[in-house]
């Protein structure tokens, strides 16, 4: 990493004399990217599989609380820091006053972590924590590795699971944790299938191998399941208990037995290595591209100075190149069109997908509502709807990210002749839209209590008595005769029944309205989120490629200028300039050679 930074510094130094701020900015950006790149590893799985133990084992410190009963309630992010620290991140309350609320960061003592991170200290996350960040001075984390311990509450296919799912595109690697007590279950494999579609590195970790003598059989079975499902993921078998014993006693043999070293190597070499490799390639590419552009114009000048008679030919060639560069910069360039068309298509597709998913849920929900009294089923109904909606939204988001990346590649293909991917990192943040949606709730309906029932019944009854009583008086009966009283009772009972029916219908309508409002809210927020994500991607890509086109154009112009100048120069001037040019070129060549050397060597 430091070698890369040095190479960038060297290149910056080399081009400082050419007054090319555009190229300098590009190198500075590459440098900044190198310095704060985080590699995010999500640790996911059903609950009680040993996720927190795994994170603890990886960093070799009890940072995530471990408990026999359900433990982790809040996602915990472990990353590098000079000294141990912990910070609570509190998210604003969607129902509260939106003004004056922003994300709150509270530093706490590391020992108090369990109070906030665990289900027993913070049941149902009543502290409303978005996540907890823990900083640790560990060599493993120093390379920018970031471990995220996710809560397993409710299992993989719950609202929590949906949140984990929508965080997938933002992760560089996913570790699916399951214990050696049993082979993979259907939800776990389904999760893996989705993870592998959006995340470059997916690995499976089989924990608690110390406890189950048959863990080898289970591992074999799991490998079989993975192979059958066509999932290409590595499987690691570890024992956190052994790892801790090993760390405590400094026993390297036990450490080997714990199965942690291969996992650590995987994280270091493949996950970090891959991210590192990517960083290396893009940085070297940046350095080469920048220096090449300068060298190109120097070379053009050199050949013009050397053979002034061929200068005109050169100028002609350069003019064509300039025209092409200008063409790329123009708004009408083909890549621009691909990008804007692609984003428009994507917008429509994603919107349609989301609406389609939600419409399905709404149909099903409305049917459920009309089958009975909503007041009775509401307790189960509301969580069911929220769950289904969360799943739909996260699936939509994951799909959107996937499509956006695909689009970026298409645009890059257009642009890049040498096929070296110049893509800016399109890392999207996990969608937070669902958290800001108001919960699904109905106003408490009218209570059809005894008093009201009596009153309604009496009203109906009174009418009945009066009606039939009056009729009776015509044939000489008294107002209160058995017939009129009977009719009164009948009508009274009927009006109570009617009233009850009316109330149920009303509740159904209320519930339906609430449901529609909720779905509408979700469509609005999630749709906005997806559109925002796309817009950011579009802007990133546009800026990125426009800058590239700009640089290319400017370099060609400089070459052209130099070539044109050389025609007018005198012999002595020409010789002096040639000497100058050759030293400059060899300097740039040295920088390039060094950068290329970085590509070969492996970390």
């Amino acid at each position, binding site marked *: 990493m430091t070698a890369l930074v040095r190479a960038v510094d060297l290149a910056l130094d080399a081009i400082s004399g050419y007054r090319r701020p555009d190229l300098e900015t590009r190198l500075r950006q590459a440098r900044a990217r190198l310095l704060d790149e985080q590699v995010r590893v999500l640790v996911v799985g059903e*609950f009680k599989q040993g996720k927190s133990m795994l994170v603890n084992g990886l960093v070799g410190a009890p940072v995530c609380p471990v408990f026999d*009963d359900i433990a982790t309630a809040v996602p915990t992010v472990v990353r590098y820091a000079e000294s141990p620290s912990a910070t609570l991140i509190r998210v604003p309350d969607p129902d509260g006053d939106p003004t004056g609320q922003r994300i709150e960061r509270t530093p706490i003592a590391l020992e108090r972590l369990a109070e906030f991170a665990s289900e027993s200290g913070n049941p149902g996350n009543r502290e409303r924590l978005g996540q907890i960040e823990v900083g640790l001075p560990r060599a493993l984390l120093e390379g920018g590795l970031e471990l995220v311990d996710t809560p397993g509450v409710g299992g993989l296919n719950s609202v929590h699971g949906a949140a984990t799912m929508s965080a997938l595109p933002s992760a560089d690697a996913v570790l699916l944790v399951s214990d050696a*007590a049993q082979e993979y*279950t*259907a939800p776990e494999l389904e999760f893996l299938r989705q993870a592998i579609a959006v995340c470059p590195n997916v690995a499976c970790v089989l924990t608690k191998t110390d406890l189950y*003598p048959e863990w080898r059989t289970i591992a074999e079975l799991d490998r079989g399941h993975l192979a059958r499902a066509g999932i290409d993921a590595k499987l690691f078998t570890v024992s956190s208990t052994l790892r801790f014993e090993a760390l405590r006693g400094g026993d390297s043999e*036990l450490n080997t037995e714990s199965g942690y070293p291969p996992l650590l190597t995987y994280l270091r070499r493949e996950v970090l290595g891959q991210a590192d490799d990517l960083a290396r390639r893009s940085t070297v590419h940046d350095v080469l591209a920048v220096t090449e552009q300068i060298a190109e114009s120097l070379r053009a000048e050199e050949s013009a100075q050397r053979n002034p008679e061929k200068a005109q030919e050169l100028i002609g060639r350069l003019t064509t190149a300039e025209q092409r560069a200008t063409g790329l910069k123009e708004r009408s360039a083909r890549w621009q069109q691909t990008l804007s068309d692609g984003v428009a298509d994507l917008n429509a597709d994603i919107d349609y997908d989301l609406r389609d998913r939600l419409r399905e849920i709404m149909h099903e929900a409305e049917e459920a509502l009309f089958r009975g009294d909503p007041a009775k089923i509401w307790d189960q109904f509301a969580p069911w709807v929220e769950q289904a909606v969360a799943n739909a939204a996260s699936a939509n988001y994951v799909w959107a990210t996937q499509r956006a990346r695909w689009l970026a590649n298409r645009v890059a293909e257009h642009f890049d002749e040498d096929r070296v991917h110049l893509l800016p990192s399109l890392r999207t943040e996990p969608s937070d839209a669902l958290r800001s949606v108001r919960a699904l709730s109905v106003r408490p309906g009218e209570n059809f209590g005894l008093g009201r029932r009596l009153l309604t019944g009496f009203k109906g009854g009174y009418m009945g008595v009066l009606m039939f009583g009056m009729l009776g008086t015509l044939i000489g009966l008294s107002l209160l005769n058995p017939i009129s009283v009977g009719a009164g009772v009948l009508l009274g009972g009927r009006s109570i029944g009617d009233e009850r029916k009316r109330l149920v219908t009303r509740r159904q309508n209320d519930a339906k309205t609430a449901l529609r409002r909720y779905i509408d809210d979700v469509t609005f927020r999630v749709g906005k989120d997806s559109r925002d994500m796309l817009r950011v991607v579009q802007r990133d890509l546009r800026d990125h490629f426009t800058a590239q086109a700009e640089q290319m154009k400017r370099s060609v112009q400089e070459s052209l200028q130099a070539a044109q100048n050389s025609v007018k120069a005198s012999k002595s001037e020409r010789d002096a300039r040639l000497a100058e040019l050759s030293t400059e070129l060899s300097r740039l060549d040295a920088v390039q050679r060094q950068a290329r050397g970085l590509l070969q060597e492996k970390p």
Partner: protein
Amino acid sequence: MTENLSDAVRKVLRLAVYTYRDQPRTVELLRRQLERLDEPLRVAIAGKVKAGKSTLLNALVGEAVAPTDAGECTRVVTWYRDGASPRITLYPKDGAPSPLPVVRRDGALTIDLGGTAAERVDRLVVDWPAQSLRGTTLIDTPGIASLSTDVARRTLRFLDPEDETPTEADAVLYLMRHLHVTDTEFLESFRDQGVARATAVNAVAVISRADEIGGGRVDAMLSARAIATRYRSEPALAGLCQNVVAVAGLLAHTGRTLRQAEFTALAALADAPRDELDAALLSADRFLAGDETRRALVHRFGLFGIRLATMLIRQGVRSPATLSTELVGRSGLADLQRVLHVQFAERRDLLKARSALLAMDRLLRAGGDDGRGLAAAVERILAGAHEFAELRLLGALRSGAVRLPQPLSTEAERLLGDSGAAPAVRLGLPAEAGPDDLRRTALSTLDRWRRHAENPMLSRRAADACRVLVRTCEGILSRSARPPSARRLAR
């Protein structure tokens, strides 16, 4: 009273057989129900894959009758019932049942389907001479959320069938390693929709593999019990099942079938220096690395079992019998057996009658007009039999549909027979209480509940509930009035 209920149900069933005499399929179905009334109670053991269903079944039987393996093992619904001699019968989906050979390997029964594909098998029936199967037929089911979806489907169809055949099991033990979403969904689906609407009265949740909690520490069972207690007080679960118990199935099974050779091996282990043993017991691999003969030991006890057994021997357990008792005692099997006895066995006739009536009800609904008179008869039993009223109320109380203020609610559940059907237990008296004590307490309880029933502050449903309890107290009184010897004769 219970006898009367069974008789009444029998009468209705016979009437139904007569009514539908021209429909052989229906008659066959009804006859099965009639036979079922005389058979032992059927308890199904259900749960997710690898929850330890077969292991627990073995522990309950006290013999290795259900095959167990590291991978997913049970693929067919298997019935274990009492029989004069060991016999396995395979019932295919279509075609005649065929016998399978009974093969025992290392004292464990191995079942070979003999070339029949698992999906073509309706069920296996294993007849086995065992004391513990005399009162209950145990049914082992394939795991839910299994990767082979077919296996899972077989279980769901068995426990919660959607066609007209009502569930075959009278009661369910639901095994879970920890509470999962699919678990609650499953329990919900099992809670019946039909007539008795007795929610949560025929299911008991079991935290199986309790010994593995906390990495198999020696105090794992304590932890497991604490978790069970927490689940018990969770309203979501209280509405779905009657009770939650923690059991270490493997430990219980091994404890019940402890062999002298195993005890000797364990004693030898316990003799070794403590540090050495602790280091060896750090992981299964380490333990096995020393000696391949230990594999059988790990297989039978699990790491937790070995840790516990060696600790017990070191603390002075000297004979296999004592060790066996200790292990079984610590495994929580006794808790489970007590719960089974109280919640299922004592209510055997009631649960069976309920299953039969449920079956009738579904039949009548599908049957159309001929069954009108029958439907009335079924309805009469359901409405008239106080046992059903009790069962319904218990379900309603547990699910929160009816709310009584505390401590009334606790007392009500006890009176309804939640912790045992014996009059003394219901009244909250010690078991050895004399008839006079019983009578006195019953009278005062009756009086109290009469007053509750009149309490204007209670909602109508609560007052109704109080009236059911008044009737329960009256029932206890009328039974305790009879001399005990006469009662025994009546049985």
